[in-house]
């Protein structure tokens, strides 16, 4: 997917070296570059114009490309996504911003019954090159309906790609790939990583693997942490901490939930023999179910211990003052790692 990480049309005069950039800035740059390169790319959503989005991810796009390229729509998510379907039918590449995870739900019928199915029902004649950006997850002190992790819904809908970056570089590269994709991509942006910074060169963004490829963020031999999005930094921290216990954990960042990179995951777990799936979404019928089931099936003879899951509780997302009790943190990850039957002392009843 070489074309997806080019730096846009800026002249050499404006070129810069790497400098600290946030994920929000990288996402913004990805849209800017895509819009510059392809006049068919249109950004639309609530408050994406003058305001630049409530997270400022579309900052400056209307100023640069005009109101017809980055458009404040009426406040109606089904209407937004439905209109995007029509625009895609006419050859545009809409990039839709849903303001918060739970506010994508009104568009669920358009998503499940049209966006996901249009290519298939028309035997490929009406592909849906739509990117649906969904800020997701908690940890930002949001009140109810502002912190849902809705990726399980999208994963369970054949026809959609589901992608989620965990790093600044991936944010840029994966969003470019999503916009360039001829298939609909639900692009899940971990809210609490929006302001995380990394060294990054907007004029020569690093090449990153494309949609459908997981990445081993940290090599290890003792056990594999399988994770994505907002839980990647948690797992990296847990892996650091586990070194004190003499454990060398591998961390796999899935990057795409659909397509699912089974090869990378299975290779890792067969090598380490142990796995913990970590995510923020509720555990029951959450993404980890599919992942653990698949690992269990494909790595059966290599497993030294059951595949464990560390996830959000099976509850509606808590109010801000209690969210820390819900979010899977380093301690819970380490607890799960400790239960991976290092000495065949399997404890019944843990999660």
């Amino acid at each position, binding site marked *: 997917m070489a074309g997806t990480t080019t730096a846009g049309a800026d002249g050499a005069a404006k070129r810069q070296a790497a400098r600290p950039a946030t994920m929000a800035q990288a996402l913004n740059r990805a849209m800017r570059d895509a819009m510059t390169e392809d006049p068919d790319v*249109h950004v639309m959503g609530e408050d994406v114009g003058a305001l630049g989005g409530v997270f400022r991810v579309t900052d400056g796009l209307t100023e640069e490309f005009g*109101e*017809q390229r980055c458009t404040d*729509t*009426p406040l*109606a998510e*089904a*209407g937004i*996504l*439905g*209109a*995007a*379907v*029509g*625009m*895609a*039918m*006419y*050859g*545009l590449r*809409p990039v839709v911003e849903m303001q918060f995870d739970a506010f994508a739900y*009104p568009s669920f*019928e*358009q998503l499940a*019954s*049209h966006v996901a*199915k*249009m*290519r*298939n*029902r*028309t*035997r*490929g*004649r*009406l*592909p849906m090159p739509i990117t649906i950006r969904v800020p997701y997850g908690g940890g930002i002190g949001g009140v109810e309906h502002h912190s849902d992790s809705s990726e399980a819904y999208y994963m369970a809908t*054949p*026809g959609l*790609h589901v992608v989620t970056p965990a790093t600044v570089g991936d944010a840029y590269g994966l969003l470019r790939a999503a916009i360039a*994709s*001829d*298939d609909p991509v639900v692009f899940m942006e971990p809210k609490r990583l929006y302001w995380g910074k990394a060294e990054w060169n907007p004029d020569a963004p690093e090449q990153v693997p494309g949609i*459908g490829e997981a990445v081993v963020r940290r090599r290890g031999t003792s056990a594999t942490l399988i994770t994505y999005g907002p839980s990647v930094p948690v797992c990296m921290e847990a892996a650091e901490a586990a070194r004190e216990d003499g454990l060398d954990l591998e961390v796999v960042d899935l990057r795409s939930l*659909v*397509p*699912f990179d*089974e*090869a990378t995951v299975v290779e890792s777990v067969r090598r380490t023999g142990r796995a913990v799936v970590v995510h923020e979404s509720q555990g029951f019928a959450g993404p980890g179910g599919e992942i653990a089931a698949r690992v269990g099936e494909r790595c059966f003879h290599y497993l030294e211990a059951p595949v464990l899951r560390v996830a959000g509780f099976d509850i509606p997302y808590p109010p801000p003052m209690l969210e820390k009790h819900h979010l899977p943190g380093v301690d819970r990850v380490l607890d799960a790692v400790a239960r991976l039957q290092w000495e065949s002392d399997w404890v019944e009843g843990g999660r």
Partner: protein
Amino acid sequence: MPDSRTPADTPAEKNEEVLTMTVLEQPGAYRLSPPPAWRPRADPAPLLPDAEPYRLLGTEADLEKTPGRDTLLRLHRELVRGRRYNEQATALTRQGRLAVYPSSTGQEACEVAAALALEEQDWLFPSYRDTLAAVARGLDPVEVLTLLRGDWHHGWDPKAARVAPLSTPLATQLPHAVGLAHAARLKGDDVVALAMVGDGGTSEGDFHEALNFAAVWNAPVVFLVQNNGFAISVPLAKQTAAPTLAHKGVGYGMPGRLVDGNDAVAVHSVLGEAVERARSGGGPTLVEAVTYRMEAHTNADDATRYRTAGEVDTWRDHDPVLLLERELRRRGVLDDATAEDVAKGAEEMAAGIRERMNADPELRPMDLFAEVYAEKTAQLREQAAQLQAELDAEAEGNV
């Protein structure tokens, strides 16, 4: 139709202008220290529908001038063919050749007028009820019936035909029409979208959101509501308390037009005007065509459970084919020879459909995986291989 309804009299100005309006142009003044003068954002009067459904048949309008003899005869021919098409499709259902058929018998005037109101480059957005509109637009009936036959979900090339797939989830096709029309306008193309929906579909949120987007974006869209009296078994009175469905237009800032949906000439005229208005930058129009569904909802439905035969009979006198034929004969536009010729053509069309639909469709099980994505995922490759192996085993008689 009042003259005030000309395309020049648009409810919303061009998009650019609308967007520069500020909140100060809203109402809210305190008289003692007036803020900038209040005015409504559009004049409501021209957006309201006529007091009665608009009609041309049975009036003294000079139909030979407008729409003219050719159009009258074309409408007649398509209506007769349309009726025959509906009968043929219904018969195919009885023979098990279609999984299901939602007939538009009694609604042919709307179906045909919708197709004829559009130019070559325009787009039609039909619902499951509107296969006839697609056929009248020139599509191959066998391709059009694919969904209802059941060998695939959809049968024609939407881009080549500029007819969107039949939409089953109610009203969901309306925002698509708005988005497409908007996109075409952004690209500088002369394209109007005409989207069809039923009276029941107007209750869905997607209807509301689509009309609002269309009005705010001033998109070149015509919304045709076929009010056929029922949403399956639910009569209009349980669907809405509005004076007419056309009265919804003003709430979006677009004109609402009310027309006798069994008067093919009137529907054609109202839609034609709305299409012209859209084409010339005047924005969207909501048209309510009052008609009646003569058959059950589909062959699977039992209409005797919710309406009387007497009610249906009352509408037989208002049959759109009958009304047009009677009028054209009265005016001397249609003679026996032409009528016979038309009937013969319709028979031939029906025979062609019958013959081709009686052939078993070619089934392509492996297509189940072909276009889920542009490229199969690893999981889909595995699953396709599994099905292929099963099919191979079956072919070898191993199963």
